[in-house]
């Protein structure tokens, strides 16, 4: 029952985050969204993921967003009625709705053949993962299977993940650090 309640709340959060015009509030609600998501993860026994989502997803993302917001504008532009009725705006809306509905319909169509929720005989639980559950303790000596897989079996994904952080870090530094202008800026005089 509590699961259903959580899901309802999270849907409400998502709708609220998306529709509110005050971006600061939207960001806060997004934080709440992440946090409830972490709770749901815990309910689904994904404790490691829940930790990460709560700290990284809800925490860091919110902090970053607020930091960004502090340097830009807090309120989203309110379109007037006439602006909202312009053909281009309407077209965009209809197009996005169309895309979204199609995508959603395709996804729902896919679920028709899905194994039931929690089915222990689902292929996802049968083929590769049993070995992680049965052997990883012997093979790696770690009690937590998730950690074992993360660090050992799929260690290179983790290396990739680290690289992603590094790449993002360098990009952010590149974008935000104030660099001195070049002394001899050859582009200064050229217009094209």
């Amino acid at each position, binding site marked *: 029952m509590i699961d259903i309640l959580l899901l309802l709340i999270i849907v409400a959060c998502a709708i609220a985050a998306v529709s509110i015009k005050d971006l600061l509030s939207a960001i806060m609600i997004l934080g709440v969204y992440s946090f409830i998501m972490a709770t749901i993860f815990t309910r689904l026994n994904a404790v490691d993921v829940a930790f990460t989502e709560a700290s990284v997803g809800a925490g860091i993302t919110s902090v970053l967003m607020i930091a960004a917001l502090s340097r830009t504008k807090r309120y989203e532009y309110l379109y007037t009625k006439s602006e909202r009725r312009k053909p281009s705006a309407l077209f965009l809306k209809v197009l996005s709705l169309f895309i979204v509905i199609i995508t959603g319909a395709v996804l729902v169509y896919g679920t028709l053949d899905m194994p039931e929720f929690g089915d222990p005989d689902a292929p996802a639980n049968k083929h590769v993962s049993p070995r992680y559950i049965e052997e990883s303790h012997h093979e790696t000596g770690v009690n937590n299977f998730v950690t074992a897989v993360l660090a050992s079996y799929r260690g290179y994904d983790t290396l990739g993940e680290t*690289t*992603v952080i590094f790449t993002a870090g360098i990009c952010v530094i590149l974008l935000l650090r104030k660099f001195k202008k070049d002394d001899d800026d050859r582009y200064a005089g050229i217009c094209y």
Partner: protein
Amino acid sequence: MKFIQELPVLIIVIPLIFAVIIPLVGRLNRLLPWIIASTITFFCFLISISLLITVLDTGRISYWLGGWEPPWGIEYAIDYLNAFVLVVVSFIAFIVSLYSRRSVELEINKNKISAFYCIYMLFITGLMGIVITGDIFNIYVFLEISSLAGYGLIAIGRKREALVASYNYLILGTIAATFILIGIGYIYMATGTLNIADLQERLPALFHSKMVLVALAFFTVGLSLKLALFPLHAWLPGAYTHAPSVVSCIMAATATKVGVYAMLRIIFGVFRIEFDIHFIPIANILIVVSSMAIIAGSALAIAQTNLKRMLAYSSIGQIGYIVLGAVLANQIAMTGSIIHILNHALMKGALFMVVGCIIYKTGIEDISGLRGMGKKMPFTMAVFTVAGLSMMGVPLTVGFVSKWYIAIGALNAGMGYLIPVIITGSLLAAVYVWRIIVNIYFPEELPKHELQYTDGGAEITDHKSQYSEAPWSMLGPTIALAVLCIYFGISATAPLYIAEKAAVMLLQ
């Protein structure tokens, strides 16, 4: 011996390590990042060549990362197809690094250069990772590495439009990546595995499953976004136009090619062709879409006044050729498609390098600015002519080789009505290329008030009289690519041999 066996992982790990080192040593010497980037990409090129030779000798290489056998661990699987693409990517990366020094010095703030080379290396690593890995989730991770690096590279551009272009690319790229993630989820749910070879074995039994179908749809849409297939190309023109020349060059020559590779791998390597034929008409949809891409991309290219934007649209058309050849799904067309990965990398690389040379020397990005440039920069313009003719698909250039294969493949597939599409693409290419070539060599007399603007200096110079060629450090690599455009146009035996093997492998 040991070293040789570790090559598949070294080609990823070495550039990764040096990517970290570059910003550290960048403070010591301004030239050092460039030297490292060139050396390491050259090294990667050598590794990829040796991998290719090994593959040709012994067949598929399977490298188990961390010693865990697939499907439990991650596998780097190298066969004809990705060995070939790996060589293309690392070669272009090497050539572009060689070329980059002067262009980067001019177009990028000096203090950002070491960061630039760092991201550049990460970008290449990401691309090579996508190509080499045999694990579908690993593809996602590397895709994100290369994409993030790509956003950074584009944002380095000097004009403020670059930021917006980068942001647009980021949004669409992230949507694409998330689509791919959904696809991975669905397919994992259906099969319980992430290893590509394992997937290929387990999928045929599940072809009737709706999950598999949806997974394919999401992969196709996600990858089409990434490789800028026609209606989903919105991010590409802006990104190529506003990025620094070197970045446009590397992205045009490698990034979309790797996207195409991923598409080939997933549509044919994971799902097999029977699936397309018997379960959904995805091949037919893609034939229509790619034909549209060929025509629309080339037609839009004609309408452009900015040289880089024109080349960007022409890329969209050329990507159409690659996808068209692939989805015709017979050996000849597939060979054409695979070889076009190399050919388009060569010619588009050369063209963007030419643009870099022009910008370096004159700052001109407008097509009209090329007026009479033939006298001023004869070598650069000769390269432009060669690569341009190649775009038109003139015999003895690489462009003809791929078009020939794709056209004959279309006929063999019983789709003769695609010939007009291919031909129209060529003709439209002739319009936008020849227009420029004429302007280069047969400059029109301008009315007096439209005098040519040239260098940043106030001096008015006449293109016709002055010889002012780009530095050899830029010209050398550019000419090298043009020479290869002709060499592989005359004697395409070696790449064809590999492409054919790859095609056979994909279609069996």
